[in-house]
């Protein structure tokens, strides 16, 4: 939020440009707001669809074969009170673990232990992409009774995992990266649905939304600290586990593009948490602990116009992906109404337009994978009863929640958590639909009465 090198006169002119930029920025924000909402609708819906499809067709994920070590109370009591007590305790433990991990990660970040964090992230995505995907594939083959030899399996898994690692942590075609992020979110959601006891799942969803709300809006929350530290250092926060709708320039940006300055960075909210999804449930593949699995939930509006005084420095970065991103931004820009009537500022407008096209590249929407995961957990759990009305209701509720959240974000221009509104709506609609609406609609459809 500063201009480092401008002189005084330039400063004034620059500031005026800044104000103009800010106004146009708001206009841009509104215009592209709807596009960005849809850019999030599609992947979120896709992730939920994958989870729901899996839950309906593959019974493995609804069988209870043991639990995570984070939920020691297994709800085996007969009374409601004992179940509620167990679930509350489990939820408290889970949120506690998340809190501790988040604080740990913030400390690591503050003391610049980047290698450690990177290693952690790589280990976790390794586990997801190889282990969980392998289990998933095995269950799919089993469910559809398709025999497969180990050689084919190895080749397929190796390719899947290796390409995934490259796409997520380094560079890759945007669509492929997005697809992989959706896949790992779905896998993680399925793991949660399988390994958490029933009531605990619902309580955890509620507890996580509350935690999200508190951690983002409280001044001393770990996430706020993380965001502020990142802002101070003018660094991008780890892009590895964030879903982005446009190409991330920032992959490796910290060292390769030092001139990039953030003129104004809308506050980002970021939350990391680590779950050690220990493969140590009772009776399953013998208790090998993998390295910590971490996910960060990260919602930002992503509207970060970046001043690039030295355009030449980016030439080296021009790769296929950047070109694609630029053409994507071009397509977005084509829908723009051109700033009217400034004939004499035509060359300036053109230069501005070019810079704004660049800005639009970075102006994709980003949503943390944790949000994907918990939305999918909610919808998947709702569908595990076999009632499609409930599933649909939760789906619509979550989408509306997401809409409202993005609307609030546009209004308040502040960091906001993505989970609370959607999860609240989802929970309300889930229980209301399954208990109140379904008997009504069942009675109606069985008599073929249409309301």
């Amino acid at each position, binding site marked *: 939020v500063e201009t480092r090198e401008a002189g005084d006169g330039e400063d004034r002119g620059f500031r005026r440009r800044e104000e103009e930029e800010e106004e146009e920025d708001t206009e841009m924000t509104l215009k592209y707001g709807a596009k960005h909402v849809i850019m999030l609708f599609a992947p979120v819906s896709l992730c939920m669809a994958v989870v729901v499809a899996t839950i309906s067709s593959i019974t493995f994920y609804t069988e209870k074969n043991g639990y995570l070590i984070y939920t020691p109370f297994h709800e085996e009591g007969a009374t409601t009170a004992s179940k509620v007590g167990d679930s509350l305790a489990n939820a408290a433990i889970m949120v506690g673990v998340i809190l501790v991990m988040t604080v740990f990660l913030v400390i690591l970040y503050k003391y610049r232990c980047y290698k450690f964090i990177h290693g952690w992230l790589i280990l976790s995505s390794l586990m997801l992409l190889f282990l969980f995907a392998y289990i998933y594939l095995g269950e799919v083959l089993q469910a559809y009774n398709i025999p497969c030899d180990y050689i084919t399996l190895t080749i397929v898994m190796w390719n899947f995992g290796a390409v995934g690692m490259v796409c997520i942590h380094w560079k890759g075609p945007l669509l492929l990266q997005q697809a992989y992020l959706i896949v790992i979110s779905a896998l993680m959601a399925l793991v949660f649905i399988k390994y958490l006891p029933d009531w605990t799942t619902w309580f955890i969803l509620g507890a996580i939304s509350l935690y999200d709300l508190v951690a983002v809006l409280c001044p001393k929350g770990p996430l706020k600290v993380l965001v502020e530290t990142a802002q101070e250092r003018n660094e991008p926060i780890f892009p590895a586990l964030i879903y982005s709708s446009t190409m991330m320039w920032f992959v490796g940006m910290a060292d390769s593009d030092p001139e990039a300055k953030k003129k104004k960075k809308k506050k980002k909210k970021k939350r990391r948490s680590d779950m050690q999804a220990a493969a140590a449930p009772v009776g399953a593949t013998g208790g090998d602990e993998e390295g910590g699995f971490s996910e960060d939930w990260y919602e930002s509006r992503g509207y970060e116009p970046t001043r690039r005084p030295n355009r030449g420095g980016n030439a080296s970065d021009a790769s296929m992906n950047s070109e694609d991103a630029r053409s994507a931004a071009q397509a977005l820009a084509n829908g723009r109404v051109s700033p009217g009537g400034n004939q004499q500022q035509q060359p300036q407008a053109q230069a501005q337009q070019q810079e704004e096209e660049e800005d639009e590249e970075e102006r994709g929407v980003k949503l943390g994978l944790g949000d994907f995961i918990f939305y999918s957990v909610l919808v998947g759990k709702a569908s595990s009863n076999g009632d499609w*009305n409930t599933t649909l209701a939760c789906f619509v509720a979550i989408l*509306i929640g997401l809409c409202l959240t993005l609307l609030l974000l546009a209004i308040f221009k502040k960091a906001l958590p993505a989970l609370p509104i959607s999860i609240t709506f989802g929970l309300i609609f889930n229980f209301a639909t399954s208990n109140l609406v379904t008997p*009504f609609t069942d009675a109606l459809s069985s008599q073929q009465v249409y309301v």
Partner: protein
Amino acid sequence: MTAKEFFGCTFIAYGPAFALFIFTIAREPLRIIILIAGCFFWLLSLLFSSVLWNIVWPLKDQLAFGLVFSVLFQEVFRFFVYKLLRKADEGLQTFSDAPPTASDKHMIAYVAGLGFGLMSGAFSLVNVLAMATGPGTVGIHGDSPHFFITSALMTSCFILLHTFWNVIFFWGCDQRSYLSIAYVVGLHMLISCLTLLPLQLATILPAYVILLVTMVIAYALVGGSVKNVMAFVTCKRAGYTSD
């Protein structure tokens, strides 16, 4: 019951609506949002009607009671959608790059109506379709063996009817034409009560006739005419601005 029946009924019920979605709504982000808003409000109306139905438990078996109040709730929520969308009209204008035209209001009404209809259709038929893929024989106890196809046909009818009713309703609210509003509410009640009778050709046919009539009325209201239809059919391009 076979996969054929499942797919057949799915496409009968949701085909037209899905086509409408793909051709008119899928490319415009704003319309998708309005669609989801329509879905959400219908869901709310259903929630309220179910709450009522559950509360008045002595009358649970009398579906007519639940039905009448459900229709009323739906119409009330249709009015809420109207209010919300008109209020947000200005905000919505800033989203679109094109200059505002008269048909924008109708477009919004149409999209919201489709949302209403889709949700209504989904909730009516989805569980039935899920059962269609499972084992069993329809009508083995003497009921009509045409359960699925009649359900699917009626669902399709209702989805489209909701769409057209919404257009007429919004127009009526704008023009303060109580006749249109009464038409929509009255017809909704009429057709829903019609479905209380066992569903067969004799009940489906009137529903489709009313659908055609409503469609013509809605089309006329948004500025369509026989000339437009002929131009469309003969693929003329020039000179017709209302679309």
